[in-house]
């Protein structure tokens, strides 16, 4: 293990690691543009210069390997002067675009200029003009702003493996660009926007939507597939404006897919259910009278808490429970191993944990067709779910139907009781990803109209039925379900799924 000295402080590092990696890990901040922890180092921006004892000149720390007895100095007039000069060069051709650039406020160039470049520009010549164009369906490039750090190029080359982007032209005319007729159109394309240290690459869906310094950021989890990527939601005036991946090496690394990122439009869709027809009391009355003849169909996008409560409900009315889930497309794996799952529901693993491996709805529909079941409760959290014909037929057959859904469907128009559900962004809860990791969903904004979270109306029904005492928060339900656990222990990064409470009534799903 080589030993190095950083600003007089001794460190022991694994051999072969790059210096900047170690420094960042150690907490010594060294400014950089082209280096990104998820990408291979390139060493072109020259911002991460440090002084080492092995060399007379300043060295680029992102490319410098740690060797034994290396002494590193990260501060000092020499280094500052070098940084200042690098900054000045980077800025001479940068357009005065802060007013119209969406990156302003989270822009590394701004931050580093403020911190490391003291002084005003001495550049009087005309700036180089580069083009502004769409790189693909999702990303637009302002060539003028590009500082040729090649982060995006390395991303498409090394992470995605599609390699659409490359650096065109030389010197101060250089900018990232796509090959003609090959648009930047891969399932992870929008990650280049996040890693762009300046505002050259812009997400077209977020273009001019909000200034980032007005926004609020909330850490939550993506529900678009069973991977459960950790994301940060950018909130502005009570709306989710965008989702960005949040680093979690155990789940998604630094990235997320475009599909999950853009799957926020339906939250404010006019098709959202906003008004209730009937309520928890009606459901409770009907189910009480029909005890033993009740079927419950639950989507595997429901949170753990909702599943737990649905299970309680099934026990209370001696009903059968069935599941509906959604599989789409084929599994896509990037060059670096980032996969997009076919299972588009967020919590199938959680359902499997609570209810066993067999997660079908055939048991319920068969019961309905045979006439055993006359009452059906459908609880769905999957947007635009194409309902299986079997369920559709079954809903037509039952004598009483209750639907809790996020979007309008033919089921909800037909139902006797309709309860508008809060979508994933409107409720607290936990979901379990395909690897069995419990992760938090956080309430980002208010639910539309009269929509309530499934956890709360299910509890109300249970209270009416006498199966519960009171209505508690989602966290309260979670504590009931998993004794000794709470949201604090789940944390922002998730944790392993704990054991479920043993005193919960046995699984009533009849097989």
């Amino acid at each position: 293990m080589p030993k190095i000295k950083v600003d007089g402080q001794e460190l022991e590092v694994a051999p072969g690691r790059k210096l900047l990696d170690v420094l960042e890990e150690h907490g010594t901040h060294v400014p950089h543009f082209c280096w990104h922890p998820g990408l291979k180092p390139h060493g072109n921006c020259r911002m991460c210069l440090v002084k080492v004892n092995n060399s007379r000149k300043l060295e680029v720390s992102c490319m410098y390997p740690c060797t034994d007895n290396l002494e590193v100095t990260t501060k000092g007039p020499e280094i500052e002067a070098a940084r200042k000069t690098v900054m000045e060069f980077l800025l001479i051709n940068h357009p005065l675009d802060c007013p119209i650039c969406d990156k302003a406020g989270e822009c590394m160039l701004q931050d580093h200029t403020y911190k490391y470049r003291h002084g005003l520009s001495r550049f009087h010549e005309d700036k180089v003009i580069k083009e502004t164009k769409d790189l693909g369906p999702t990303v637009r490039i302002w060539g003028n702003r590009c500082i040729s750090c090649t982060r995006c190029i390395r991303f498409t080359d090394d992470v995605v493996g599609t390699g659409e982007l490359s650096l065109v032209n030389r010197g101060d005319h250089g900018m990232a660009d796509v090959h003609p007729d090959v648009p930047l159109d891969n399932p992870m394309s929008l990650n280049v926007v996040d890693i762009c240290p300046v505002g050259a690459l812009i997400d077209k869906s977020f273009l001019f939507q909000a200034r980032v310094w007005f926004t609020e950021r909330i850490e939550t989890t993506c529900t678009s597939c069973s991977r459960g990527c950790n994301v940060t939601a950018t909130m502005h005036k009570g709306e989710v404006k965008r989702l960005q991946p949040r680093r979690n090496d155990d789940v998604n690394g630094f990235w997320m897919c475009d599909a999950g990122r853009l799957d926020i439009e339906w939250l404010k869709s006019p098709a959202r259910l906003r008004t209730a027809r009937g309520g928890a009391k009606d459901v409770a009355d009907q189910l009480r009278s029909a005890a033993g003849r009740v079927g419950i169909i639950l989507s595997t996008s429901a949170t753990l808490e909702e599943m737990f409560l649905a299970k309680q409900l099934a026990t209370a009315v001696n009903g059968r429970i069935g599941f509906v889930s959604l599989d789409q497309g084929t599994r896509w794996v990037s060059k670096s191993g980032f996969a997009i799952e076919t299972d588009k529901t967020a919590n199938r693993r959680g359902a499997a944990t609570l209810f066993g491996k067999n997660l079908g709805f055939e048991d319920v529909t068969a019961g309905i067709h045979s006439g055993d079941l006359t009452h059906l409760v459908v609880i769905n959290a999957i947007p635009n779910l194409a309902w299986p014909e079997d369920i559709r037929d079954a809903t037509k057959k039952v004598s009483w139907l209750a639907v809790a859904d996020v979007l309008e469907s033919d089921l909800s128009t037909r139902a006797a009781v309709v309860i508008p559900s809060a979508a994933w962004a409107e409720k607290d809860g936990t979901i379990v990803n395909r690897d069995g990791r419990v992760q938090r969903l956080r309430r980002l904004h208010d639910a539309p109209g009269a929509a309530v979270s499934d956890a709360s109306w299910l509890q109300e029904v249970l209270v009416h039925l006498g199966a519960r005492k009171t209505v508690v928060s989602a966290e309260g339900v979670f504590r009931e379900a998993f004794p000794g656990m709470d949201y604090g222990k789940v944390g922002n990064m998730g944790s392993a799924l704990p054991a479920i409470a043993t005193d919960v009534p046995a699984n009533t799903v009849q097989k």
Partner: protein
Amino acid sequence: MDAHNPHADAHKDAHALVAHAPPGLSWLARASIAAYLPSIAAGMAKTLEWMFRPAVTLRYPEQQYKPRKGYRGEHRLKKDEQGRPKCVACFMCATACPAECITIVAEPAPWPDRDKVPAKFEIDMLKCIYCGMCEEACPCDAIELTETFTQIATTRKEKIYDKERLLKN
């Protein structure tokens, strides 16, 4: 502190008052202070003199006060050479505004040479405190405080100035 009793000491005799008179006055002046009449006469002379001074007030609707350039009155959105609003919807004014009275919604520009324009630019003049920080914060020289300070409206809605109203100013 000794609570003084006005009934006991408020009425000092003339000597005491003379003793209190400001220093540097002639004995004649000191003595005359003791009596009411001379100072009253002097005061009357002064008020009489003021009666013949010209009035300093303005007769408002006919005579208008013209503030000098640099007065912080109503806002104006400036136009560029082609008559388009100069504003690029950078939100700097809204950020700098201590009263939070500026509402902007941005949209992509319909012109090839511009990227971003305000789709909506509203200033709630009832919230505005006319501090001029928006003008100071504007990096594009697009907003300006004019010398207009007479502002009349009959409804609250009128005082929410939209983009067209601000461009007209």
